[in-house]
């Protein structure tokens, strides 16, 4: 088990190295010179050159890459072109805000997904199955940013019940007023994981129920509840893998929903950075989000191996 974990961790090193190269290459490919975009054209050439020296933009590409990577590795993400504040400060604050959305959305989406999927499978080919399967396919087909807009139209504009924009607090929500800000974005974000997971759980449980060992369990007189336990245990590894992936998407793909709700999270930060051409913030955000995604995947793999020893290869 420890060997497997170690192997998984070691394997992440070349992947992350590749990620850093890819992000760096993308930034090099960006049209236009960063400094020319930042300073007005009437600024003397010396000042522009001085800026280039300060941000080390005058050195060869591979030296820039190594310098950039070694700074990243010690947690120095540089300084924002736009706000002049350390990128790390802005990024980790924003990541916290994203987590405040992603965690409840994940819990809601995963619970509903497993529940709907398992219920649909257990009531195979009844109206309940059809209803839940339809809910699931609608969940995966809805453009979630549009759902956000519709929810705002209904609950904020027409009914005037819930706030439409922003976070309204800092850190962790402590009062009903704070929670109100969370409701619409959390519901919006939970739709995709709900749909994706319930579809997988339904298919998995159906397949497991058709296997012979389930019949054996019933035959030897186990209660339905115990059979359910065995079924879920068999369905858990692949469902877990998908949950990990979906949680990664919630963190890394939050940009659309955060834009709809003006949520000051990592997606919102990325959006700002793109339009301000704030290269340090943008590159750091992408690298950090990808790293989190890789780490989540490792955690899921290890967890899967814990449940199912066959995975420890």
């Amino acid at each position, binding site marked *: 088990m420890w060997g497997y974990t170690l192997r998984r961790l070691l394997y992440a090193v070349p992947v992350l190295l590749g990620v850093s190269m890819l992000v760096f290459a993308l930034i090099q490919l960006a049209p236009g010179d960063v400094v020319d975009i930042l300073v007005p054209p009437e600024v003397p050439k010396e000042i522009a050159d001085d800026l280039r020296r300060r941000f080390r933009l005058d050195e060869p590409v591979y030296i820039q890459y190594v310098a950039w990577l070694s700074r990243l590795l010690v947690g120095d993400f540089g300084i924002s072109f736009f706000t002049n504040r350390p990128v790390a400060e802005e990024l980790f604050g924003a990541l916290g805000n994203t987590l405040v959305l992603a965690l409840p959305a994940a819990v809601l989406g995963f619970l509903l997904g497993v529940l709907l999927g398992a219920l649909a499978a257990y009531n195979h080919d009844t109206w309940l199955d059809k209803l839940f399967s339809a809910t699931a396919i609608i969940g995966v087909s809805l453009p979630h940013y549009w759902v956000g807009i519709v929810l705002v139209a209904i609950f904020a504009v027409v009914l005037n019940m819930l706030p439409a924009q922003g976070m309204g607090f800092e850190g962790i929500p402590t009062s009903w007023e704070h929670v109100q800000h969370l409701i619409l974005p959390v519901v919006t974000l939970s739709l995709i994981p709900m749909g994706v997971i319930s579809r997988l759980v339904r298919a998995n449980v159906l397949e497991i129920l058709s296997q012979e060992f389930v019949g054996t369990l019933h035959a030897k007189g186990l209660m339905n509840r115990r059979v359910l336990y065995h079924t879920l245990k068999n369905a858990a590894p692949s469902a877990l893998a998908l949950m990990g992936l979906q949680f*990664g998407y919630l963190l890394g793909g939050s940009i659309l929903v955060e834009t709809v709700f003006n949520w000051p999270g990592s997606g919102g930060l990325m959006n700002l950075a793109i339009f301000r051409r704030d290269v340090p913030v943008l590159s750091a955000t992408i690298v950090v989000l990808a790293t989190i995604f890789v780490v989540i995947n490792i955690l899921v793999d290890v967890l899967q191996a814990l449940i199912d020893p066959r995975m420890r290869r």
Partner: protein
Amino acid sequence: MADAAAALPADPAVALKRAQQGKSYWQRVWERLRDDKVTLAVIGVLVVLLAMVVFAPWFTVHDPYTGSALRRLKPIGTPGHWLGTDEVGRDLWSRMVYGGRLSLLAGVVPVFLALLIGGFLGVLAGFTGGLVNSAIMRLTDVLYAFPSILLAIAITGILGAGLQNTILALTISFIPPVIRISESVTTQVRHLDFVEAARASGARPLTIMRYHILNNVLGPILVYATSLISICIILAAGLSFLGLGVTPPSAEWGLMLNNLRQALWVSPFVAALPGVMIFITSMCFNLMSDGLRQAMDVRL
């Protein structure tokens, strides 16, 4: 022979029965599809949608690009503009019909390109194995380190907005999953007995790949690719919604949502309309993909 193996069920008795019926794999796929009312209906909707988008002038009265300050943000049900008008007074129905051109283009082309490139690389990796496999799959792992939305946003965000960059970004985002699926189905098929038999009887690698491998992996890969179209349509419109996709004044569903967002407080339902098109289209592609998967008896 190769076709029969694709649908070869685990149960030998069922396989025998099917073989005795004397029908080819594709004949049976067609029969199953013919009985599937939902999938047929969905394909019908998609065909109508495609026709509307291609022959947009026949389905619309107003020009999608000319507006009038006097007709701004008319509500749904306004005579002459039954679905209302947008923030500069352009007819919303016209824009939704014309908008489908870019939305469908940006939703389908990336998947098609990813299918070609990713399918080729994946089958190659699965068929050759060894070093080639490792090289291709390790590079795929790097792209897999990004959630697909993040990768697409990173590429368009850095390289700039526009239809070309949107298609490029989405193609790159969809190549890794296509490679993974193609590689895994090819590896499975490669170790089947009939491939060994072909090799033992002296078939060249290219012949084996063309006749024995490709015929058996194309179905699953195609079905998987159709399931990506729905995601791609949502993401393409999402990029435009962020201002990273198609640029104004083009009509495109995501961009329309973006532009109308400011009008949300004035006429909330008109502002939400373009999303209905994204939803219907992605739902139809999802249902079609499910139907195809069942008809072709594919398990991924």
